[in-house]
């Protein structure tokens, strides 16, 4: 029962956030909420790998950053009116975003194919290494700003929507999060998801029943990469700016923490994780200031770190498991 109403309540809350921000006189908060929704997309796709496929990827920011850079670079070419690979550049979202998804999925295909030869700690390290390689690749690309990153003049236009309006952009991101959740939910409960979960429980067992575990895990890796690419393209549009920081390993770590915090192996948990993580990041410094301890503002992690440890120790399926109790147990 609680499992049924959780997503509905979640959706209602997300729908109410912009009016709420205006009502309390802090309209800038819509921007924070948009960040939360975008990171939620990245986190739920990472959980497909960790929670359902048993692949602890520590390089999810690679696909996030790639998606962002595809948006940034094409928009840059369009603004400067320079061709890209001999083609005229465009700033249309309907072209750029699918391209960002495709490029991230293609990168995931290559990185996944090489990384999935390993497992456990080696898989963690090799995905981290690939992500850092991409990070330094973009640091060294002077043409696209290198370390300083690349500005985008405006958001990629989408027919029928005023993209410069923060409310519109927020609801667009929210809609895309809902679409991603719907697709993942279908996937997890389809035969594909069963096979993925069976491989997670025992690779040899699944193989001895005729399952090519590499094919299934690689497919999941590409799907997750594609989702992260979409989130990255949205983030580029949200910030109006891309930089190598979007590929940095600390960002992979942040997304991983969102998944752990919200609940590994649950569909909606990572959304909750993104909400809590980014809300604490936003409001803990304010709380310190309000408590008369402005010196602590920079050190909000002093509270956040122990909190994470407590949750990992005591809530089996993260905060989602804490809220749903026994009902969170399966899928």
């Amino acid at each position, binding site marked *: 029962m609680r499992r049924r109403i959780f997503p509905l309540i979640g959706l209602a809350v997300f729908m109410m956030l912009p009016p709420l921000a205006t009502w309390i006189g802090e309209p800038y908060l819509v921007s924070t909420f948009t960040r939360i929704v975008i990171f939620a997309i990245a986190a739920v796709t990472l959980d497909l790998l960790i929670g359902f496929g048993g692949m602890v990827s520590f390089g999810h920011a690679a696909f996030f950053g790639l998606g962002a850079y595809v948006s940034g670079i094409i928009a840059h070419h369009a603004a400067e009116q320079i061709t890209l690979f001999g083609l005229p550049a465009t700033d249309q979202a309907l072209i750029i975003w699918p391209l960002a998804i495709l490029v991230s999925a293609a990168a995931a295909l290559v990185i996944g194919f090489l990384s999935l030869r390993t497992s456990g700690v080696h898989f963690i390290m090799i995905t981290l290494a690939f992500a850092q390689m991409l990070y330094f690749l973009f640091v060294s690309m002077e043409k696209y700003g290198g370390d300083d990153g690349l500005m985008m003049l405006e958001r990629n236009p989408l027919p029928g929507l005023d993209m410069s309006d923060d409310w519109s952009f927020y609801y667009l991101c929210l809609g895309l999060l809902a679409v991603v959740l719907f697709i993942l939910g279908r996937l997890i409960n389809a035969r594909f998801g*069963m*096979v993925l*979960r069976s491989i997670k*429980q*025992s690779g040899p*067992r699944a*193989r*001895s029943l*005729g399952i090519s575990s590499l094919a299934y895990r690689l497919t999941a890796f590409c799907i997750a990469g594609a989702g992260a690419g979409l989130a990255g393209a949205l983030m580029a549009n949200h910030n109006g700016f891309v930089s190598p920081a979007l590929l940095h390993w600390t960002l992979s770590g942040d997304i991983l923490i969102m998944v752990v915090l919200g609940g590994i192996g649950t569909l909606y948990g990572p959304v909750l994780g993104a909400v809590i993580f980014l809300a604490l990041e936003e409001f803990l410094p304010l709380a310190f200031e309000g408590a008369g301890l402005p010196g602590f503002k920079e050190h909000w992690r002093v509270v956040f770190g122990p909190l994470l440890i407590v949750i990992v120790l005591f809530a089996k399926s993260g905060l989602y498991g804490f809220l749903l109790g026994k009902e969170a147990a399966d899928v």
Partner: protein
Amino acid sequence: MLQVEHIETFYGQSQALFGVSFSVEMGEAVTLMGRNGMGKTTTLRSVMGLTPAAAGHIRFAGRELTAAAPHAIARAGIGYVPEGRRIFPTLSVLENLTATAAPGRAGGGTGWTLQRVFDMFPKLKERQRQMGALLSGGEQQMLAIGRALMTNPRLLILDEATEGLAPLVRREIWNCLEALKNDGLSILVVDKNIDALARLADRHLIMDKGRIVWSGTSEALEADPELGRRLLGV
């Protein structure tokens, strides 16, 4: 149908199989017996490619499977029921059966469906929504057999088919294997229950220290009580 020729298998430095050869013909039930640690499980694991043989050949239905990956071997038409059942614990009974099912694969006889598995094991139907881990040992073994059947195999391999099960459940498993054999499925089975094996199977192989040291029919097996004492420890 299955031909195993002179396979030698190692665990690291230590050799477990010393040139094992045998065959299973179409529609035949063959048993593999022997005391613990004599290489029965290793032989089955080598056939499945889970512990690949370092030397020798394995052919199945005219295909060379010597260096093939486990999933390719399973797809060639071998259903494997591992020792200790090894179901997927956090998948439901229904999911255990359908996740790895291969309805289109050319099997022995008519294709397997959920309905046929449930007809054979009515208990599984009652428990189809339960997690695999919550089943009893006998039900888990039924699930493991059902799961293998859902891949439509031509040869069913069972490692310790009834180990650790209650007598009544054992009888149920043996009856089901007999029905499968009568249906035309080839079976290669490891177990310690000589009486049941003699009734089910056409031929028997006995292993000792990584070699097959005796092979013969059920009559020959029952005619020689000394054999059991010496090689099977019973």
